[in-house]
């Protein structure tokens, strides 16, 4: 049965506070912070993009798995901010971690859930014995138009998971819920995404996550209390807290995965960085439910059981990594984002 054999995450060390952005636009920071439950967000350095963040996360994953990277026979990078429209990020990652040339690789896009779509592919390839190891990455240096509501949350970060057999966490089942729902989009050539405001809530995020989670629990014969940890996509701090409550999960179950209030929404990285943070603290036999969400729209849900092997690996210390941070002002933020070039 397919299993996670290694994981890694990377979030750039620069941060900008909600207050700093609100000040520029004449908005009240306190009501934004409490409305979104977000205090600050990560900002990519000038030389950081989806490729470099993916490579960083991938290297950490290989190290944690303790495997020969040549054994990785598939790499999928999910993102909505691939540096090239044509030319894969996945090949850059493959070359950087020395997994080339005998592998399949591709870039995925499904708004914020392209990384978990890649994870499902790796599970399928491993379960069908087509590959020994597969790597799924979700990374973004997400875009937001200056002044848009998204600017308070659009952040940078990513996570990589290596799937093989008999690893640190068995993936018991996965299921997806997908519809054509235009809640958030970016047209070819547009620098910033557009969105439907509150339409991104009820008929989009909440509908897809609750449906995917319920379908998964029905298939697995589980209920919310059977899980030690729940990981939901985190476009802000409020939505995952609310969807957890709607499904009957307790605050305690999402506490370890909830990073958005301090790093923002890392889009394709969001639920995967959350899962990586849970892998940092999970103990053998504990059970995890992960439900991603991608606009457009769909959710992938996973039922995972941690194995004894978790005790044999070096944990990543993601929360410790997040403590090493440096605040920037709005002008520096705009420079780092490349808005002046």
């Amino acid at each position, binding site marked *: 049965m397919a299993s996670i054999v290694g994981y890694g995450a990377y979030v750039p060390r620069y941060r900008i506070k909600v207050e700093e952005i609100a000040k520029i636009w004449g908005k009240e920071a306190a*009501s934004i912070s409490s409305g979104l439950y977000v205090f600050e967000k990560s900002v990519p350095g000038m030389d950081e993009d989806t490729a470099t963040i993916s490579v960083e996360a991938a290297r950490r994953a290989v190290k944690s798995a303790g495997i020969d990277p040549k054994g990785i026979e598939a790499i999928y990078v999910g993102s909505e901010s691939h540096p090239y429209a044509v030319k894969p990020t996945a090949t850059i990652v493959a070359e950087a971690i020395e997994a080339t040339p005998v592998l399949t690789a591709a870039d995925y896009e499904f708004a914020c859930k392209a990384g978990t779509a890649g994870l499902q592919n790796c599970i399928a390839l491993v379960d069908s014995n087509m590959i020994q190891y597969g790597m799924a990455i979700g990374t973004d240096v997400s875009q937001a138009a200056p002044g848009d509501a998204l600017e308070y949350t659009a952040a940078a970060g990513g996570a990589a998971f290596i799937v093989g057999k008999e690893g640190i966490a068995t993936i018991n089942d996965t299921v997806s819920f997908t519809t054509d729902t235009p809640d958030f989009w970016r047209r070819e050539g547009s620098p910033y995404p*557009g969105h439907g*405001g*509150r*339409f991104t809530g*009820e*008929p989009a995020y909440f509908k897809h996550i609750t449906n995917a989670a319920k379908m998964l629990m029905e298939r697995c014969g589980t209920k919310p209390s059977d899980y030690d940890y729940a990981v939901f996509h985190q476009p802000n701090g409020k939505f995952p807290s609310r969807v957890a409550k709607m499904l009957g999960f307790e605050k305690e179950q999402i506490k370890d995965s909830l990073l958005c209030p301090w790093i923002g929404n890392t889009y394709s990285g969001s639920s995967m960085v959350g899962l990586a943070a849970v892998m940092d603290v999970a103990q053998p036999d504990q059970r995890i439910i992960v439900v991603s969400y991608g606009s457009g729209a769909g959710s992938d849900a996973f039922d995972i059981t941690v194995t004894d092997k978790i005790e044999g690996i070096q944990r990543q210390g993601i929360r410790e990594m997040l403590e090493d941070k440096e605040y920037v002002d709005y002008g520096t933020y705009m420079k780092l984002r490349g808005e002046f070039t």
Partner: protein
Amino acid sequence: MRDVAIIGIGMTEFGELWEKSFRELVAEAGVRAIMDAGIEGEEIDAMYIGGMSSGMFVGQEHVGPLAVEVAGLEDLHIPATRVEGACASGGIALHQGYISVASGMYDIVVVGGAEKMTDVAGGSATNILASASDREWEAFFGATFPGLYALMATYHMHKYGTTPEQLASVAVKNHYNGSTNPKAQFKRKITVEDVLKSPLVADPLHLLDCSPVSDGAAAAILAPVEVAKKYTDKLVRIKASAMACDTLSLHGRERFDALPAAIHAAKKAYEKAGVGPKDIDLAEVHDCFTIAEIIAIEDLGFVERGRGGPATEEGITSLHGEIPVNTSGGLKSKGHPVGATGIAQLNEIVLQLRGEAGERQVKDAQIGLTHNVGGSGGTAVVNIMEVI
């Protein structure tokens, strides 16, 4: 002129109705009204549909035949007219329907209003609504409706000492009323503190001083009283229907502490009906912003000029006050699909006069009034209804 009665009412829920198209909203409100009246579609002689800007909101003009088609009345080729007067479009549809029945031209007339506003982003909605102001002299210079009403609020505060807390008390009252209305967009109660703590939209108006962007439709069936008796014994008559206009722009007006068009429409309606403000048992007024309700109850003569704020704070206009105002929750809590608002106000008054308003029923309501305003006061329609 013949006496005109309302024999049927119907409306959709108001709110962010993402699953319902403009066409579906028109159909739902119309069907509900027809069923309420207990008439056959073939009995309908004409329709008047109020709509502010379906063209810009959903790209649909030519709403008359759309209403005929969804009603399945195309084979009868009945006349259906879309009327427009910004947020007063619904009130104007009622006024036109009233004239056509009273004159003897038609017997059974459908009046309605519909707007689907949530298919566009917030900024676009603000811009579309700004087309109800003077585009050349207001909107092009950056004036928005919250901005224009904020100017009126500032002037009212300066002249009469109206306070932000008094403005907030309008929203608190209307949310309380709306919390009992199953059709309302916002059914949650709020406090003065909630209003004052909500983000500032245009000083002194906070987010919770403003009515929302909404989807919805409402309809009513009119008939001459003599004919109406065939269909119902709970007769509600239109005692008076008056409409008045003013300058399109706010800056062109003679005064800023009142809406002269509303004063004028109210005066004409009271004269026609042979009643005064003291005779009104309840009213639905155009609270697009909290200041608008304060000015409205002064324009209608319910309170003295300048007393709107304190009167609201004292509870004179609350559900069990001297003159209950916006028992439905008003535009603030029930929602404000602009073209539908005037007819939705009529729906509430008819419900109340029939004694069917449930939890929010005003005791012994005999005479009710609707006050529907377009733009910053360029158009006003006042209708007075009574039980007969």
